[in-house]
């Protein structure tokens, strides 16, 4: 089968576009889409922003790092080592190799060193993804600020985003949805470094393909705790829908983007955010979620 745009051999069929593309045309389309996401949302500024890129060593984060480096953004790779044996220890060499090859500064921060415990030591595995999310986001925000970064960029892809949208809808967490989007956060605050997601319009499969075509070596080791995640059920549901009705995921994302201004207006806090009594970070209650988790397990 040939590419729909030239005579070269096709490497991918994009059913939602009704096209088959060769390696060259796919790569051009992929890069153009990421540039368009960045431009349309004004999420990054090449001259003004210093960007902490959250890097796990997987396909998404390394593709993101590769593209931002290629586009000459001011970046620093940041990895949070949560202490998951057989997972994080296996991914660190990939990041080290990548950052060395592309001359990207890389910082690793260990949960164990900073707070005295690892995720492996948490007994209730069912809530692991929630704890991990709170800890990783909290540490990324703190470290990005220490590094004087103005943005945190993460490799969330179209699949991650549509799963997040449905999960929050299913659970009735509309306020959480209002804080999501291409640039996260409802309010501006000196302590909060906005998180951006330049790959949010690229599917997980497209990220893998782009990484393989560009020779990016990434780890595909699964997190041992991911089997406990509610996300897996939503992922399965969405993949079935996408297979039967190509374009479903993209439609969900685009419609969410249309709803976002209304959600944000509705949930905009009337007061300035409070400060955590323990650490001084932003919180809604007297103590922030990050401190609650740290206190419980350290």
């Amino acid at each position: 089968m040939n590419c729909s745009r030239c005579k070269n051999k096709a490497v991918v069929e994009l059913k939602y576009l009704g096209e088959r593309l060769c390696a060259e045309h796919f790569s051009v389309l992929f890069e153009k889409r990421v540039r368009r996401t960045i431009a349309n949302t004004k999420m990054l500024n090449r001259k003004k922003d210093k960007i902490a890129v959250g890097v796990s060593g997987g396909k998404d984060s390394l593709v993101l790092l590769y593209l931002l480096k290629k586009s000459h953004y001011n970046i620093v790779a940041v990895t949070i080592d949560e202490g998951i044996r057989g997972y994080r220890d296996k991914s660190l060499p990939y990041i080290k190799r990548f950052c060395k090859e592309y001359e990207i500064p890389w910082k690793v921060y260990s949960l164990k060193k900073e707070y005295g415990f690892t995720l492996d030591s948490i007994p209730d595995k069912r809530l692991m993804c929630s704890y991990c999310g709170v800890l990783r986001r909290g540490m990324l925000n703190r470290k990005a600020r220490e590094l004087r970064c103005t943005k945190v960029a993460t490799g969330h892809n179209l699949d991650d985003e549509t799963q997040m949208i449905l999960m929050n809808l299913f659970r009735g967490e509309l306020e959480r949805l209002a804080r999501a989007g291409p640039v996260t956060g409802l309010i501006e605050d000196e302590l909060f470094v906005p998180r951006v997601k330049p790959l949010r319009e690229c599917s997980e499969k497209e990220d893998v393909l782009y990484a393989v075509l560009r020779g990016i070596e990434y780890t595909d080791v699964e997190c041992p705790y991911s089997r406990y995640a509610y996300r897996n059920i939503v992922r399965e549901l969405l993949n079935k829908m996408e297979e039967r009705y190509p374009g479903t995921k993209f439609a969900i994302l685009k419609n969410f983007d249309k709803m976002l201004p209304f959600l944000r207006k509705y949930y905009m806090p009337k007061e300035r955010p409070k400060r955590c009594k323990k650490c001084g970070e932003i919180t809604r209650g007297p103590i922030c979620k990050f401190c609650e988790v740290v206190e419980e397990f350290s």
Partner: protein
Amino acid sequence: MKIHVETRDFRKTVAFRGKTVKQLMKGLKLNSENFVLSKNGEIVLEDEVLKDGDKVKLFPVISGG
């Protein structure tokens, strides 16, 4: 014919009587939607025809990190 198959979870040589990568995947009880497929180092579509001794590598899409 014999096809060498490699993915995250296994590496093996399988006896194959079909024609395409899609049929190979079906025989292995794997959904080709969940993988990027390569044959002898080149990315291919699932309707790619196989011949004896081909090396098929499957890149899993879902990493769960």
